[in-house]
């Protein structure tokens, strides 16, 4: 759970953007980086291949400000979406406080969405975590593409019990990006106010 440094008066929370390859995880972070005032964000670190596919992760620290005297900071990560980078994905989930699952609306990516969610569930289980216990938001991205699948169909394969907060997005235009981040951040911070969850 969140790392709390009482002496330094800091709370740090880790939010991971998960989802299939090319679904728009890095685009989400790039938009946040480009729109948040300089003094509230740190450097964006991207460990990517030459063709800009995420190799290990992208990272962006974001300062919320001071809450009850505690400097509160979110560390945003993306995972590499391509199937063969599972070892990296597993490592990045270490210590996760909240997850944004970025689903792809393209008609040919329904199976990739489902497989990525199953992979997330399995990787969390390997860390001893139940997916139902982690604050999570479902972002259905690329709503602007031709032939975009209905959100209901995407939800049916990823979240059949309709338990997740679903937000539609067009990340390359910034649509739904902040809304998604805000939703997951609120869930993470609310857990800090629940004594049994705080450690």
């Amino acid at each position, binding site marked *: *759970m*969140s*790392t*709390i*440094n*009482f*002496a*330094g008066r800091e709370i*740090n929370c*880790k939010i991971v953007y998960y989802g299939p390859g090319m679904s728009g995880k890095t685009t989400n972070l790039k938009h946040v980086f480009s729109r*948040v005032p300089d003094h*509230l964000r*740190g*450097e964006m*670190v991207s460990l990517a291949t030459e063709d800009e596919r995420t190799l*290990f*992760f992208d*990272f962006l*620290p974001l300062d*919320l*400000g001071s*809450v*009850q005297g505690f400097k*509160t*900071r979110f*560390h945003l990560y993306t995972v590499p979406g391509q199937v063969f980078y599972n*070892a*990296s994905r597993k*490592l*990045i*989930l*270490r*210590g*996760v406080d909240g997850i944004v699952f970025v689903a792809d609306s393209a008609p040919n990516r329904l199976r990739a969405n489902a497989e990525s969610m199953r992979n997330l569930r399995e990787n969390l289980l390997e*860390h*001893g*975590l139940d997916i139902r216990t982690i604050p999570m938001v479902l972002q259905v991205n690329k709503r602007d593409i031709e032939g975009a699948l209905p959100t209901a169909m995407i939800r049916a394969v990823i979240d059949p019990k309709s338990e997740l907060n679903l937000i539609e997005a067009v990340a390359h235009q910034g649509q739904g990006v*902040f*809304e998604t*981040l*805000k939703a997951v*951040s*609120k869930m993470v*911070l*609310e857990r*800090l*106010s629940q*004594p049994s969850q*705080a*450690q």
Partner: protein
Amino acid sequence: MIEPSLALYGELFEQVEQHLDELLAATGVRYCLLVDRKGFVLSHKEALWAPRPPALDSIATLVASNAAATGALANMLGESTFSEQIHQGEQGVLYVESVGSNALLTMIFDSSVPIGRVKVYAKKTIAAVSGLLQTLQDAPPVAFDQNFSVSANALLDDLLG
């Protein structure tokens, strides 16, 4: 929970800082960080003469990720862990060593600093600090009241609209 959180405070935090100060003085390194395995900076000290350090958040994240990847490599090669990592450049050195199972001691120094000396003093510091971190197991649970999330939500509204 994937791993325990670290909540450093009070005398414990001061003791950790003192050990890092002593390490700086004894070795002549530029920067010394205690980083948790999730990539958050728990404590940071720099020599008085050192220039302003690079982005600590990024360093901590990369150090922790690198340590996790190195640990995974160790397991694949039949080792339980590779406890230290040394990255040597033309000008400087990055030295990382495990502090128990929860943290990493990270030191950045000029190539002119004898690495043997750094290792000897680092091991002494690690022995002391890992003992202190063990006591965190008995720390009281951390709790924030409902006002915390109300205040946090207001800030989120300001930042993200």
